[in-house]
């Protein structure tokens, strides 16, 4: 039973409590950077690191933090790890960092991270908090990758990841691929369709469960 609940802490972030699809947190970076698959991967990794580390630290200090000033303290912890990510990315992947530096620093105010700190890490032990952070960050990254795959393939007709892996789908210049999909309006529309799709799947699932009972 105990192992099962540990596993559940991890898996609930992937679908059941997915930060984008269900709780709808962190929509700003989801909309802004998903025009390229490599942006989605970079953003996902950055959020994974910040979320795991801040959840770990916050769950370790949860007994010594006074209740009244917990939010400012959480924000300072999160901002510290975001600054670390900024410096590491600037040193090792400078062109990726240049493209999304604004949204990397905006991880500080990303509701997913403060939300998990407040709702989970400040109430659970460090192991559960890390599992929760891993699940949430992976769920977030998976949705980012799905959206950016749709946008990059339909928008440019190809996928390029760090220059090494490049696949071209648009060999004979078909009008099916339009750069509308990499423009800002398409981000809103595609995310809207994906959210509607996940809601429909959940509704169908619930209906089936009612029937089987």
């Amino acid at each position: 039973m105990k192992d099962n609940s540990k596993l559940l802490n991890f898996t609930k972030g992937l679908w059941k409590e997915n930060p984008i699809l269900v709780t709808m947190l962190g929509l700003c970076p989801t909309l802004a950077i998903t025009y390229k698959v490599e942006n989605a991967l970079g953003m996902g990794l950055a959020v994974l690191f910040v979320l795991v580390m801040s959840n770990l630290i916050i769950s370790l200090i949860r007994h010594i933090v006074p209740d009244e000033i917990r939010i400012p303290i959480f924000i300072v912890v999160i901002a510290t790890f975001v600054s670390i990510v900024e410096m590491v990315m600037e040193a090792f992947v400078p062109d990726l960092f240049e493209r999304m530096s604004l949204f990397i620093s905006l991880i500080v105010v990303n509701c997913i991270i403060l939300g998990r700190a407040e709702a989970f890490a400040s109430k659970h032990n460090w192991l559960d908090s890390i599992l929760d952070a891993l699940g949430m960050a992976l769920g977030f990254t998976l949705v980012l990758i799905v959206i950016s795959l749709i946008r990059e393939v339909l928008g440019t007709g190809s996928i390029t990841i760090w220059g090494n892996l490049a696949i071209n789908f648009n060999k004979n210049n078909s009008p099916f691929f339009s750069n509308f999909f990499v423009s800002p309006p398409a981000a809103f529309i595609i995310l809207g369709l994906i959210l509607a799709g996940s809601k429909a799947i959940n509704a169908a699932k619930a209906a089936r469960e009612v029937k089987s009972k």
Partner: protein
Amino acid sequence: MTFGGLIVLAFNAILIQNVILNQFLGTCPFLGVSGKRQSAVGMGFAVIVVITLSSLVSWGLYYAILKPLGMTYMSTLVYILVIAALVQIIEMFLKKVIPSLYRALGIYLPLITTNCAVLGTAKTVIARKFNFLETLVYSFSIAVGFLFVIYIFSTLRSKIARGDIPKAFQGIPIALITAGILAMIFAKFGQLII
């Protein structure tokens, strides 16, 4: 920058590089409070005050302290503390001096600390190397653009809520698709200038 240049900058910030529809900043409050027209307007005005003041203060801190001391890597941490402190000060000030305005903006003020449009604008102002006057004009116009779009959107949503929408699309999904269509309209403003 000339007076004409400042007007172009303001026009750009309000309509073309709109903070929500083009830069995707502040999407959370945009979707969260645009359900009611009254709360959308309250949030919009609170955002104008906070974005303008926090951009000016962080601009000042960056050029007066962070840059001379070579501590620009601390900027994210400094800005977020500036914003949090500023929101708290504005809240206390309004409570004491203009209680009626405090009651109108009250619940939206604390939410603004985690509005990424505020931190985003403070960062943009530094990244684009604006001077003091440009910072003032740009941050004020960005916030006006936020109010403008959130107001339009709240009226649209009150109409949508009365429509017959498929169940899966109700709420946020249809709101996002509406925002997408609104963004297409705003994208066309870009062709007015160039």
